[in-house]
């Protein structure tokens, strides 16, 4: 099979003498660093840790659902399991996953800057993230929380004796971590671009992270105040959501979903960016309709604020507003479809090669399309009333978040691994992992669409026996999926020492990050680059290489 990978001669190649990794030594040089690349690595380690914590809870949930009876754990333990799974995965993995790791590492390099605009705030946001993570772990040690990740009032304010306030603190702090990351990105992208790096020369990865950052900055504070009010209601009896004092519990839902619906775009938009980069590189073509893809990211961000009440159709909002929100929800399908179509057209007549990142990207396109289209089902008012709070919803958002976002994250990690570490991952085992992940994913979540359509409600630890076959399939799939996620952890760790030396540009990609050494210098560029070509201009790359050959020759 043809490949575009071009590695330096392994017998003579070596890692660069001075890189951001060996520039300084000692644990303190990492914990007090202001280098965006080192902070990205700190994030990478910590979100991987929390991913496997969240994965453990997912495993417990699936194990309980293996049999119809609630035999492995009691109902309230099960409630804690899915709550902790949701909170850890959403606030500590999905929201920071791509922006805080790959975005942190790559955005300054992609725009030709030496660092993010506020390096210390960047470090602060990692510490806030860790503080939020520690509060979540504290909740775990104390005995967990069982509100569901949605903190529905008055359940969370009046009826539960678990550690709601501790968890609320965790989410409040983690929220500020995400605000500061977003703020940093926006300022950096506006103010730190290299000469010649105009808005329409930016890689699409930067555009999509920019859109996600806007959502972080505008949405997260609304969640923060909603969660503060819940905590105040529990601790000192303030009654903004308390029906006995005249408060409206639905107001909490409005404030919560005002953030939490845009939050799913915070999670998925950076993934879109990764896919744009990967598809273009492995098709050797400029992304089809660059401007449309760039603006569709912004459009998704803007529409994101107009659709939140579709999470509340069965909660007692007025039918008229439900109608309006249902119609507005359909709007989001338009920019999402623009992206899918443009990626497909990018591949048309391209010279496609099938390296691991591309396999993950294929997985993303397929799974995200299914996830997105079932989202349109759920946005339709009549369907939603039938399907919401069943496993159909669970399957829908896992298709988008796991099938979409996690695939994109893994695509990005593999794609930029040579740049992050200077070494290649092992190609064949990683292809195997990509395929295992895909198969495991389909096996886990496709049966959930069916079982949800048949009427199995979500968030129950027991279910009628006729649903058992589909649940067993799903649990079996989860095991395969688990293997699919363990494999990259193992071989990526292995490659840190034994991987092939990658050289500057193993994929022959055009981004600025591929024109510098891997791993990069602490200051990224020896001198500020001057950008004179469009994004994804492979002919420019060819010309540059020819010129270099002539000069050397």
């Amino acid at each position, binding site marked *: 099979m043809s490949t575009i990978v071009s590695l330096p001669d392994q017998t003579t190649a070596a890692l660069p003498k001075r890189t951001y990794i060996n520039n300084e030594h000692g644990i303190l040089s990492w914990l007090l660093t202001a280098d965006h690349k080192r902070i990205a690595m700190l994030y990478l380690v910590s979100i991987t840790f929390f991913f496997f914590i969240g994965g453990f809870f997912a495993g417990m949930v699936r194990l309980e659902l293996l049999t119809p009876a609630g035999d492995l754990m009691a109902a309230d333990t099960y409630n804690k399991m899915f709550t902790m799974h949701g909170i850890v995965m959403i606030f500590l993995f999905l929201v920071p996953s791509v922006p805080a790791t790959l975005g942190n590492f790559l955005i300054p390099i992609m725009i030709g800057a030496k660092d993010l605009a506020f390096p210390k705030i960047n470090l602060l946001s990692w510490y806030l993230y860790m503080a939020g993570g520690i509060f979540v772990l504290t909740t775990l040690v104390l005995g967990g929380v069982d509100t569901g990740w949605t903190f529905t009032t008055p359940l969370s304010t009046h009826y539960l004796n678990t550690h709601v306030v501790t968890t609320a603190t965790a989410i409040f702090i983690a929220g500020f971590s995400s605000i500061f990351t977003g703020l940093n990105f926006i300022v950096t992208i*506006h*103010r730190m671009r290299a*000469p010649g790096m105009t808005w329409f020369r930016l890689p699409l990865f930067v555009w999509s992270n920019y859109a996600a950052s806007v959502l972080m900055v*505008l949405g997260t504070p*609304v969640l923060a105040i909603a969660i503060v009010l819940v905590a105040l209601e529990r601790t000192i009896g303030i009654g903004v959501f308390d029906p006995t004092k005249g408060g409206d519990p*639905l*107001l909490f839902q*409005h404030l919560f979903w*005002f953030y939490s619906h845009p939050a799913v775009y915070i999670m998925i938009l950076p993934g879109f960016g990764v896919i744009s980069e990967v598809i273009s590189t492995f098709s050797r073509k400029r992304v089809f309709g660059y401007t449309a893809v760039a603006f569709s990211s912004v459009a998704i961000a803007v529409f994101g*604020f*107009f659709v*939140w*009440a579709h999470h509340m159709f069965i909660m007692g*909002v*007025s*039918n*008229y*507003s439900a109608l*309006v*929100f249902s119609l507005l929800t359909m709007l989001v399908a338009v920019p999402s479809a623009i992206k899918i179509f443009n990626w497909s057209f990018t591949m048309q007549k391209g010279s496609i090669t099938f390296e691991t990142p591309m396999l993950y990207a294929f997985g993303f396109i397929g799974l995200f399309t299914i996830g997105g289209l079932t989202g349109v089902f759920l946005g339709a008012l009549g369907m939603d009333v039938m399907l919401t709070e069943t496993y159909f919803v669970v399957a829908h958002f896992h298709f988008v978040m796991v099938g979409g976002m996690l695939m994109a994250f893994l695509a990005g990690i593999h794609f930029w691994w040579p740049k992050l570490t200077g070494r290649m991952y092992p190609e064949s085992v990683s292809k195997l992992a990509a395929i295992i992940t895909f198969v495991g994913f389909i096996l886990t979540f496709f049966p959930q669409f069916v079982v949800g359509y048949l009427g199995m409600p979500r968030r129950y630890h027991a279910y009628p026996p006729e649903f058992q076959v589909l649940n067993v399939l799903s649990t079996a799939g989860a095991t395969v999926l688990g293997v699919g996620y363990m494999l990259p952890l193992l071989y990526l760790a292995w490659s840190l020492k034994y991987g092939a030396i990658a050289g500057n540009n193993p994929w022959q990609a055009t981004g600025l990050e591929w024109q510098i050494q891997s791993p990069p210098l602490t200051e990224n560029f020896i001198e500020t680059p001057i950008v004179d070509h469009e994004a994804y201009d492979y002919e420019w790359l060819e010309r540059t290489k020819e010129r270099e050959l002539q000069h050397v020759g």
Partner: protein
Amino acid sequence: MSDQVTTNNSLKPIGAEQENLDMHDAPNVMNPEHVAHHIVSPVVYLMIFGILMVGTALTAGMAYVPLGPFNAPVALAIACTKAVFVVLFFMHVKYSSKLVKLTVSAGVFTFLVLCMMSLLDYVSRAWGRW
């Protein structure tokens, strides 16, 4: 873009040589988001302070005048006017780049989206009670 600052004669800074604190640099000046640093004079600050005090007195006074349903709009209108003066002069937005102006508007806009889209539910939930 930089002459928009200097043409404003009524609000001239105290010393023309202090108009810009920074050394200009080429790559930044060509950025459309750039605008020269402008020092607002104490006279302007004092005037704005006066306006805000008048506004405060007006808010408090108007609350005691029975205007029926118009008390709330009047109070809000005065508060908004005061806020606009603070934003434009104390916070220098009048002299800032378009980017900052856009940022302020984005905040107001998103807050209005929150209000309007939520009210859509509350108003239509019980027609006539609003």
